[in-house]
């Protein structure tokens, strides 16, 4: 059963230098209980795409087109007030940068209880506190630390707090924006385990944003590779990881060292992503692509099914 369907989503940021087309016609879908990974380099529109689902974009961003259907409801047609009732209760977010996303002057417990108090007006303070304590226990922190302040917690623990906070109102969909960035590898593994456990126990669907393919390969059912505001490859995670088809995905995979097999140099991708204010016609990846053809300079390829549950936006694959 499909829980989320994003169709032809476009988002533009107005800046002093002109409009930045951060997201240009994105199509995405996922089923209930799945974990969708969104990968891509900085500025490719991962976070913008994901945060546009609960409409938590900055003020200078406008959704210029497309629709977001969540659980049978078209979110793009809802008013701000109706959206407010969806946020946190239905869709919650684990924000990027847990280190700085906690108010240093309020106790951790209060901050976990805050979404409950804000979104469930009937709940008493006492009840919210009980629930927050239960959530702390659930993410592996003793309830007695409810009254601690963020500086008394380590980075990993703060990330656990952020996870607890995102689950406070029992959402159906959780968007985790770079949940393990800036944590060391040991803690990364623990946090990923925790996310997996939470997803299973709370029967969640989850979108995870990361630029780290190794993190996504570990957890995801589906994966979307984004480049310059577009999805270039999308599909079953195992399929995409074992048989990448888009030249960008292929180069991205080669940019990570393989822990098995021969010692080889990590290749990286030379060049820079295109300017999203003044986009040239044609495929956005053309200047960095090793296998580009003349046609790529004139026509932008569309996302099309190349295999069972495997979609790719490349002229060669069409």
């Amino acid at each position, binding site marked *: 059963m499909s829980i989320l369907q994003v169709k032809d989503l476009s988002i533009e940021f107005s800046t002093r230098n002109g409009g930045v087309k951060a997201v240009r016609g994105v199509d995405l879908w996922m089923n209930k209980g799945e974990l969708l990974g969104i990968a891509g380099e900085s500025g490719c529109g991962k976070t913008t795409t994901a945060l546009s689902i609960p409409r938590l974009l900055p003020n200078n961003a406008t959704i210029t087109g497309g629709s977001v259907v969540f659980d049978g409801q078209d979110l793009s047609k809802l008013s701000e007030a109706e959206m407010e009732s969806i946020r946190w209760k239905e869709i919650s977010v684990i924000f990027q940068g847990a280190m700085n996303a906690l108010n240093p002057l309020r106790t951790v417990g209060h901050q976990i209880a*805050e979404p409950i108090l804000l979104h469930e007006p009937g709940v008493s303070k006492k009840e919210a506190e009980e629930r927050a304590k239960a959530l702390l226990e659930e993410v592996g922190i003793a309830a007695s630390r409810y009254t601690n302040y963020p500086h008394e917690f380590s980075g990993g623990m703060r990330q656990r707090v952020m996870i607890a906070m995102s689950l406070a109102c029992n959402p159906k969909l959780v968007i985790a924006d770079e949940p393990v960035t800036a944590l060391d590898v040991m803690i990364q593994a623990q946090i990923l385990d925790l996310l997996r456990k939470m997803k299973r126990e709370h029967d969640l669907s989850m979108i995870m944003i990361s630029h780290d393919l190794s993190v996504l390969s570990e957890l995801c059912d589906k994966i979307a590779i984004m480049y310059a505001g577009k999805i270039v490859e999308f599909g079953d995670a195992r399929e995409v990881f074992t048989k990448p088809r888009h030249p960008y995905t292929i180069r991205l995979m080669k940019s990570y060292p393989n822990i098995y097999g021969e010692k080889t140099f990590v290749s990286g991708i030379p060049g820079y992503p295109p300017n999203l204010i003044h986009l040239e016609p044609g495929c956005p990846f053309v200047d960095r692509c090793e296998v580009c053809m003349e046609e790529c300079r004139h026509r932008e390829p569309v996302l099309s099914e190349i295999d069972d549950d495997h979609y790719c936006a490349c002229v060669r694959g069409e």
Partner: protein
Amino acid sequence: MKNKNSVLSQLWKDHMGKAGLILLAIVFVMAILGPMVFPFDSSQTAQSSSEILNAPSVEHWLGTDDMGRDVFRSLLFGARISLFVGLMATLISIIVGTIVGLVSGYYRSIISVILMRITDVFLAIPVLPLIIVLAAVFGQSIFITIMVIGLTSWPSTARIVRSQVLSIRERMYIERIKNLGASDFRLMFRHVFPNVLPLIYANTVLVIAGSILSEATLAFLGLGDPVNVSWGTMLHYAFVSGAMGRGAWWYIIPPGVGILVIVLGFTLAGHCLDEITNPKLRRV
């Protein structure tokens, strides 16, 4: 002190802070306990001219004033008035300044511009002549004095609070809490305000010193409350009655020293508190 890092114990560790605390302790004891032990009635004037401007004696420790009242008792009572006016005026000033600073710092809209221009106007007007005019127009009572001082001394607080709010507003957790759906009011007072509080503390203590000084100035110029005699009022009467020319030093020096001690105490404590709460000012 129980907590090793409490603000008071940090003040006590600093030479400047310690001096300030001692001076303030003296003034507060004088103001609170003094009039209980040595009651003073400003209407109890001398019956005969022989009791006027007497030099210090066993009966009158600091002599008598131009109306034959005991200067020592008057001094203790004056401490109360000076402190009361200073604290109340500061309370008004801090409340107005904090609200103006918070609101103008938090909103990016036209509200912020209007509030800041009003603040600029108040900063640009020479305050003392303004206070004198207002006090002269509205009359001589300590409540008028409190209002006048309070409503003219808030701009510096507003500026300080605003600059800090501008920085706090951009922090990630504020963004996050906004996304949680918290109202502007909740964000401002529950999340931004606690982060500016330390700055407000330090500023408050300095504003108290300024307010007491303003009150003394007003009273000295004859705009004080004649019934509630403050140290400034004492100086005024001493000056008018020509105590200086008659060599009545006991009438002039005590209130003068009193004002010095109280203002110095608050200033020392305030600067030290500023250093504690604002790490950028801390000496290496």
